[in-house]
Every structure is written in C-alpha cells, then in structure tokens.
C-alpha cells in the first residue's frame, strides 16, 4: 500500500482526538463524581437515576411528614397527660367532699375550685400549636371549646382529622379531635333507620357513583343484544342514572329503555321490540355486573338486581326510604331542643330539597348541633355541641323524626369529663352528698376514656414512627442504589485517566519521532 504523508498525519490526529474525547469524559466524571452526566451517555442508567432521585426526594419528604405527625400527636398526648392530672385532683376533691364531715359551706367553696379545674381543662383543650387549635378537627382557627352562659361546654370543632402522606399510596391520620379525646360529641342521636333511597331519574338525581354502597360503577362499555341486534354501549361518561337511560336510548334508536325496578332500587331494561334481551361485559369489564344488569332473558324485560345507592348530600329528600316503599313525611317537621334553645324544622316550609340542604339547615340553626351522614351512607346522625345540656328530638305534628330514625324523646346528655366536672360543681353547690359520691365514679369513667384516647394516640405515634423509620430505610437503600448506579469508582477512574495519559504521551512522542522524517532529510 502507498502510505502518504497526509495519511500519517490524519491518523495521528484522529487518534489524538479520540484520546482527548475519552479524557474529557473522564475529567467530567471525576469532577462530578458521577458516571453518567448526560442522558445519551447511558439512557438506561440515566433513567434509573431520575427514578431514584425522585423516590429519594419523596422518601425524605415522607420522613419530614412523619416527624411533623409525631410532634402533633406527642403534643396532644402530653396535653392529655395534664388533663389527666387535673381530673385526678378533681377526683381527690370529690372524695374529700363526699365525706360526711364536710359542711355545706366548705362544699360550696370547693365548688369554685372545681369550676377552676373545669376552666383549666377547657384551656388545655384549646391548646394551640403553630397558631392552630389542635383539638378542633378541621376547624383549626376557631376556639374549639368555650363555656357558655348556661355553664355548658360548647364544642365548636368537627370530626375532621389532619392526614398526611407517609407513603405514596395512603394517608395517615396524625391528629385527634375533641370528639375523639374529650367525647365532645357524646350527646348524639344515631339514625336508626336505613334511608335506602329509590332511583331518581332527573338530571340532578341518583348518581352512578352513589351505587353499590358508594363504590360506584367501573366506567366502561356493556354489550347489549336486543330485538334490533347487538350494540356496544359506552357508559363511561354517565354521571347520573338519567345519563345511563339517555345513552342507552340513543344507542338503540329509542328501542331500549331503562327504568327503575318495582321495589328495590334496581334497573329494569325494556325492549320495545319484544326481546330476547341479553347484557354482557365487554373486554373483561365489570360495568354490567355492577349495574346489576348482567344476564339474559327470553322476553322483553330484563330485571336487574339491587344496586344499593347510598345517601349523599345531593340526594333528594323525596326519594329517601322509598327503596323500602315508605317516603318521608316531609309535610311535617321535627323539633330539636338542646339545653335552652328549641327550634322546629319543617323541610317543606324551609325549602329543603336535598339531604345537604337539611344538614346545612340543621348545622346553621340555633340549637347547636352538628348533623352528618353516617359513614356507610345509610342514615343521618345528629350530634349536640353542648356538653352539659340535654338534647331531645321530637315530632312536630307528623312522623318525620321517626322516619329519619332520629326520634329521641327522652333526651341525650354527654357523659364525659366536662359533664362530670359540671355536675360535681353543681352537686357541691347544692350540698348534694349522693351526687358528689356518684361524681367520683363519673370522673373515673372520664379518666378511663382519657387513658383510652392516650393509648390510641400512643399507637398512632408508634405506627407513624414505624412508617417513618421504614421511609428512612427506604431513603438509605435508594441512596445506596443510586450510588451503585451512578457513583464513580474513583480509583478506577484515576487509573483509567493515568492510562490514557500514558497512551497520549506515547502517541505524541511516536508522532514527533516519525512525522518529520522524510527522504528529503538525507539528500
């Protein structure tokens, strides 16, 4: 082969460039301490690194959340410890005053001391941390407890909790509220009747999401075979059961109609062309089954199964209990008396349409109650905000209270630390020795409740700590993984670098020796 001078120069140059490229990459690696600094250097590792970076950032945040959570809970716990001490001193007073030797005057005087203890308990229950009341549930900016003019302890909070993310897929409760630890909602009437609503085919009627006890229906498509053939009907955008009806109607050219079943809230599919009818799932979905419509019949009517819609805020009052065929007596009202306040609520007169209207109406009224739908979505509970007063719920000419399952003629009164102190004070004032004796038992009960609450807080702290530790481990493990994936092995890099330098020097010296040589030198 002819080897020309240009070839020699080009080859030397190219080799030097290649070498320089390697050197610069190594320098970059050594300076940053990372193997991969640009995604194109190694897409696989860089993707791992991005994923690990994100998960590490999360783990660190979850640990922070856990720390904040445990500090809330520990604060609540230590506060309850102080409350417990106060309860103990009240008990000591009660034991002392229950003694036959005490005079009416001493007892009346001690009554003031008990009032003082009550005020201190209320003060502790109004504890603030970072400018927020920690025992008020979600009402963190309002003083949760106050002593009313009538001597009752009024709870202004709710049953909300602070929840934080401690893992990617769940939230954890890291707070306790006044109802949890002080029994502030102990005076309550729990709806004893399943309000099972019937179907409501209006555009603000029953929602698909309310079916199946509130778990709703998986959005999807059903396959219907009817007199007009077989169609796939996409029901994923139906919000109300009216949307379901309209979607099915338009998909079948008006031949198939959807209606409510005779008794229970179930669907009835009617084929205007006479059937036979069959409803199937499409592609492994669950939509037809969850609508209770899966199946086939030789005739024109397919009767579905009970879909169990829940009661929600937007449920209309006139469909409640109709699943059971017993509509509410909405023409008449109910009367709530709580302590000194009384109010009568007539849904028709007040223009209440939905359950939400009723709850808001009750909550905004003067009788100091907090009304809620129960956790299962089957009924309504009424909680008195007053500790010390008695709440009754009676009929106002009809049977609405009974229909809602909240008739309470005898009245309910809270039985907790507040009421036991209120009662003790009153009994001392009235020199009622049997009352004072029984107050000891009440205080004991209340103390026990406090202990239970503290035990639960302790359990929560432990759980939170456990998750926090797990996240700390996670962070450590991920950091190790990240190091394995992308941390530079320095000794090796430095050796590589040294090696490159040797090669470079050898190449340069070779080039310096060979390039200048030519025949011309010897002529």
């Amino acid at each position, binding site marked *: 082969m002819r080897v020309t001078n*240009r070839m020699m120069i080009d080859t030397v140059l190219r080799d030097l460039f290649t070498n320089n490229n390697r050197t610069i990459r190594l320098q970059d690696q050594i300076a940053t301490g990372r193997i991969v600094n640009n995604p194109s250097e190694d897409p696989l590792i860089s*993707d791992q690194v991005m994923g690990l970076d994100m998960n590490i950032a*999360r783990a660190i*945040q979850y640990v922070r959340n856990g720390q904040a959570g445990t500090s809330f809970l520990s604060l609540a716990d230590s506060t309850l410890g102080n409350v417990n001490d106060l309860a103990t001193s009240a008990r000591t007073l009660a034991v002392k005053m229950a003694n036959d030797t005490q005079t009416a005057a001493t007892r009346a005087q001690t009554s003031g001391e008990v009032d003082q203890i009550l005020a201190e308990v209320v003060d502790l229950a109004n504890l603030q941390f*970072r400018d927020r009341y920690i025992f008020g*549930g979600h009402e963190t*900016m309002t003083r949760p407890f106050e002593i009313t003019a009538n001597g009752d302890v009024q709870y202004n909070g709710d049953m909300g909790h602070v929840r934080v*993310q401690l893992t990617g897929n769940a939230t954890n409760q890291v707070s306790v509220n006044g109802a949890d630890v002080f029994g502030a909602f102990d005076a309550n009437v729990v709806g004893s009747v399943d309000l099972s609503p019937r179907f409501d085919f209006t555009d603000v009627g029953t929602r698909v999401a309310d079916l199946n006890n509130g778990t709703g229906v998986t959005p999807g498509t059903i396959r219907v075979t009817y007199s007009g053939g077989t169609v796939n009907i996409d029901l994923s955008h139906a919000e109300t059961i009216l*949307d379901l009806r309209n979607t099915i109607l338009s998909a079948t050219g008006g031949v198939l109609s959807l209606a409510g079943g005779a008794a229970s809230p179930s669907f009835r599919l009617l084929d205007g062309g006479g059937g036979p009818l069959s409803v199937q799932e499409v592609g492994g979905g669950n939509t037809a089954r969850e609508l209770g419509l899966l199946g086939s019949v030789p005739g024109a009517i397919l009767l579905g199964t009970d879909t169990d819609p829940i009661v929600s805020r*937007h449920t209309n009052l006139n469909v409640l209990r109709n699943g059971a065929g017993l509509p509410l007596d909405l023409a008449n009202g109910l009367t709530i008396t709580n302590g000194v306040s009384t109010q009568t609520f007539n849904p028709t007169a007040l223009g209440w349409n939905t359950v939400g209207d009723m709850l808001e109406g009750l909550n905004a009224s003067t009788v100091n109650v907090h009304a809620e739908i129960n956790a299962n979505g089957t009924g309504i509970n009424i909680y008195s905000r007053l500790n010390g007063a008695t709440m009754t719920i009676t009929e106002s000419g009809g049977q609405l209270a009974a229909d809602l399952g909240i008739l309470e003629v005898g009245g309910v009164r809270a039985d907790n630390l507040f009421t036991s102190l209120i009662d003790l004070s009153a009994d001392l004032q009235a020199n009622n020795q049997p009352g004072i004796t029984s107050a000891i038992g009440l205080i004991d009960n209340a103390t026990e409740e406090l202990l239970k609450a503290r035990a639960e807080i302790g359990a929560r702290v432990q759980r939170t700590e456990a998750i926090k530790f797990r996240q700390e481990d996670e962070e450590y493990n991920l950091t190790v993984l990240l190091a394995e994936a992308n941390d530079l092995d320095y000794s090796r890099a430095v050796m590589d670098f040294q090696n490159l330098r040797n090669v470079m020097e050898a190449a340069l010296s070779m080039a310096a020796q060979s390039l200048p040589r030519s025949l011309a030198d010897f002529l």
Partner: protein
Amino acid sequence: MAISNALTSALSGLMAQSNGLDVVGHNVANANTPGYSRQRADMTPALPTVYPWGAVGRGVETRGIERIVDEFLHSQQRDSLSLLKTDETMASAYSRLEAIFNELSENDLSTLFNRFYNALQDLSVNVEGEATRSVVVQQALALRDTVNVTNAAMRDYYTQLNNDVDAQVVKVNELIDEIADLNRKISTTEGGGQLTANDLRDRRDQTLAELAELVDITTIEQASGSVNVTTRGMPLVMLTRAFHLTSQLSVANGLPTLEVRFQEDNSPFMATQGELPAAIAARDQVLTGFMDDLDTFVAEFIYEFNRVHSTGGATTTHTSIMGENAAVDPATTTLDQIDLGFTPKGNTFQIQNGSVTIAIVALGSGEITEVNVPVDHDAQTLNAWAASFNARVPANTVTATVNGAGHLSFDVVPNSGNGFFFTHDSSGLLATMGVNTFWAGYDSATMDVNSHILADERLIATGKTLAPGDTDNLLDLLALRDQQVADGGTKTFEDSYRAIIGRMGTEGLRTNDRLSMRTDIVMRLENQRQTVSGVSLDEEMTKMIQFQRAYQAAARVISVSDIMLDTLINRT
C-alpha cells in the same frame, strides 16, 4: 546526421526530464492541499525515423500530465460525507436538547417538580400557615420558570436552525455557481480533446465534496468534461447552469419556519442527507417532536391538576371569579366542540357530560346551599350552560356570565351577603374554562400560576369544605401524582416526563454511535483516496533523483555529441 539525431533525442530527454521535475515540484508544493490529486508526467518514446536499416528512436515525448484518481472512490466519498454531516448535525441537535433540558443536574425540571410537590406536602402538614402557602406559590413559580425557559430555549434553537438553513442555502447556491463556472472552464480547456484540466478538476472535486457535505448529490460526467449534479433526481447543475435554492418564510409547527424550494419552478427540495436536510429534519422532527412532548406533558399536568383544584374549597370564599380561558364562540359552539383559541395537547381541555356543583355560602350564618348544574356537552353552548346555571341557583345569590371576550365568570350578586366555591365538577368545565384553577395556560410556553392565586394565596383550594384545617383536596392533589393520568391515562406525570428524557437519551446515544461509525468510514475512504491520489514526499524525492539523474545523463549525451562534432569539424 546521426549526431544531430542523438542531439535531438537528448534534447527531448532534457525537456521531458525537466517536465517530470516540474510535476514533482507541483506535487510536492501541493502535498498538503486538500483535494489535490497527485499528477504524473506521461512519457512515451517519440516516433522513430525509419531508415532502410531500421527505425531509429528520436527520444522521448511528454504526452500529457495526468491526475491519478479513482472516480468511483470520489462518489463513494461524497455519499459518506453527506451521511456523516447528517449525523453530525443530528448529534449536535441531541446534545443541544440535552443541554436545554439539563436533566441529571440540580436545577432541572424533575428536581423542581419534586420541590413543588414537597412544598405541597409541607402545606398538608401546616395548611393554615401563610408561609407554607407562599412557599407553594414560590415553588410553583420556579417550576413555571423552568418550563417557560425550557420552551424559550427550544424556540431559540428553532430560530437558530432556521438561520442555519438560510446560511446553508446561500452556501449551496455559491457552491453550485462555482461548479457551473468550473464546468465552463473545464469544457473550454479540454475542448480540443488533448488537454486535461487537472487542477480545475481537482478544484471541482473539492467543491463537489463541499457540496456533498450540505446535500446528498449524484454526479454524471458529460463528454465535454462538465459534470451534471442532481439531488434526489432534481438538477442542481446542468452543464454550465446552476439551479438555485431559495428559502421562504412560512408558518409551520406554530412557529416561523424557513421552507426550502427550488427557485426555478418552486418545486420542493427533497434531499434527505447532508447538513441542510439534516438541519431541516432536526428542526421539523427532532426539536418539534420534543417541543410537542413537553407541551403535552405540561398540558396534561396543568389540566389534571386544575381539575382537582377547581373543585376544592379554600380558606376563603370567592365573590367574583373569571375563567382564564376564553371561548371563541360561546353562543353557537356546543361545549364538546369548544374552541378556546388554541389546540389543546393530548386529551386536555375537553368538556364531558357531567355536572358542576356550586356551594353558595351565606356569609352571615355560614349556611351553605349546594346547587348541582348538569352539563350536556353536545347540546349546550357555553352561553346556554350559563343560562341554565342562572336558572337553577336561588335568586339573588350568584350569577354566571360569559363576557364579550368569551370568559366565563361567576359573580356574587352585589350586597347579597354571599360567597361561593365549587364542590364537584365531573364535566371538566371549570378546568377547561380556567375557573378556580391553580395553573393558568395550556402548554410549556403559556404555563403560569393563576393570577387569583398570586394575588391571594389563601385561594389555594386545600379542602373540600371551608374549614381551615381541611386538607382533603390537597391530599387529592398529592395523590394525583401517583395516578396514571398522563399520556392518555397510561402513566404518572413523572413517568411521562422520564419517558421524554429516556427517548432523548436513547436517540442521542444511537446518533452518537452512528456518528462515530460514519467518522471511521469517512476516514477509511479518505485513506483509500490518499493511497491512490495522495502525494508521498518520499516517492516524489525518489522521482526527483530519478529525473535529475536522467537530466544529467541527457546533458551528458549532448556534451558527448558536442565532442564528437568538435572532433568531426575541427580535427578533420
């Protein structure tokens, strides 16, 4: 007779050897000239004089000076140069994009995304704190800045690629002009058929190689010595005529874009290899593809985040709120066809059937009236929905209006003592119209924090109710991070973004690998060309000695002949 014959032969030898030495000098002088092909004096014996006793040679003749080239190698070299320049341009595009996204660093988009979410986490622990709220807003602004800056950098790069295209069009035109000119000179020089215009041909080869770097070309040499140059069947040079390219400004990919065409008949420029088409492809495919990916990611993040945010309650109620987005035709377009004046990326900004629930708060008593207003997306226009809203809410509370510009707004009736927030929206209407949203905008260029939030951080919708400690909506926003809502509901936001960077890395790596392979090929071909056409100094030195000696020998013959003549003339 015989002596003068010897003199003539020796003279021809002198001249031929000095020609040969000239060529050596020329070769040595051009040893480093790019594209130079070594030359060789082509010597043959001169035609002999025929005598009865035989043919007597008359010395040597220089028939011509030829270039030593392998034309096939040249065309191969040009092809591989086009490919090399394509890959070089692409590789630089990917490395530019990597620099723009700056991933794996401390201030990249993924880090800021993390920080934004961590600020939201901190808010969930201390939702009442004004400081924690303003940290959320600050981190949101930082995330917005990074997204905006990334977009702006990509737009800058787009403009720069336009400029590259423009400059390269000018360069192509210059080169084809030069080739046409060289064609003319070569065909004139070589017109008689005897001469070959070696150096002009070298220059043309060199120019063709420069052209091949820009555009992939095919060449066909004509009988006249001219060469016709085409790219993908379209002529660039025909004999002495150049067909110029022109770049015209149009709008493509939503940006001012230079489009390349032939000046002559406005036909499209179809070349696929070389710097010019590669710059066009880098602009229209690579860069535009990543801009589109980022836009889709951002649009989905904005929209899905806003969907959750729009139905939350803040610690304060609204009295007046105007949507960020405006419908172009609220009177006649149905909601499913709504035109917001931009093309939404992915499945965003679309209104479905469903309903919107507004909670109207009587500020005095705190009593809440919730009103559910259905949304019929293929029957209602925006105006019709606003009218149905107004018909359903109690009189003297809140009214919905669509203003002249097409913004949907909700306003409390003055002095009615009400406030409001939203508790439910299964239709996406609020997020689509930009009502009660956290983010404003619809892609990476327009992404911003909603001005309401900037003005009053308390309007970050953290709860489902107005209770100050309620974080239920905030927890939904946090949970959204782990839901597969991006990329058409197949990925989480983070995975969707990682996929973009993953694609960038994989394609960049592939381009770099291809580039180093092509560099090797080009190098090898150049070595091959050097083997054939390169100047070897040793070889030239050897030849120099050869010619020198031959020259000396010929001179010797003359001097011997001279002695012989002297003997003949003066001594006889």
